[in-house]
């Protein structure tokens, strides 16, 4: 299993702030995005078409080539706008 978190504009577009997902083998962030995009609708739109999406694994920003292992916390969010 992995823990997924969605923030801000993405959270609102998906209507979800996160979920637990079955994840048995290490796989890349890109692979996870593809998997989520197959849900269609907003999921397809956000995870296939949205090039500005950021990913963090275990609370560190990572590129799409990063491997996700079972037990990881994976967050997706738009570019940050704090300060």
């Amino acid at each position: 299993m992995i823990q997924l978190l969605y923030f801000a504009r993405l959270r609102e577009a998906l209507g979800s702030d996160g979920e637990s997902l079955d994840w048995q083998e290490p796989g890349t962030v890109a692979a996870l995005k593809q998997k989520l995009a197959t849900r269609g609708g907003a999921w397809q739109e956000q995870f296939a078409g949205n090039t500005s999406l950021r990913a963090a694994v275990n609370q560190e920003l990572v590129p799409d080539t990063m491997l996700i292992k079972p037990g990881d916390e994976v967050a997706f969010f738009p570019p940050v706008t704090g300060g």
Partner: protein
Amino acid sequence: MMVRVQQEDFDVGVETTRLRLQYPQAGAVVSFTGQVRDLNDGQSIASLTLEHYPGMTEKSLAAIVEQAKQRWHIFDALVIHRIGTLPPQAQIVLVIVVSAHRGDAFAACEFIMDYLKTEAPFWKKEVTPEGAKWLDERASDHAARERWQ
């Protein structure tokens, strides 16, 4: 070094005094205070809501302060960032840097703000007369950050 993410307001005077009095050899204290503007891109702002990623926020702010400490001679730094819904002219963020000489404090404080703006997981949503909207990242913030590399 201290990082606080909180809904409550803060007092710039109290925080500045508390920090500098810990360092009798400090000669310079530089602070940045961010304020909610009543206008943004020509639209009046009724309120601003700040969302963040608990856990990652604190880690990323601590990492930014740590980088500043490695680049400049500073004694200490404090970062306070508010979350939740704030009215115009509310304080949003405070960064204070204490150092022996002013050049280091100015540079480190600006560095921390430039990195905070582009790395710390906060998101702003504005409420305007035309409804609520999430803010987009600003090219000028990325340009400000690039200068340090």
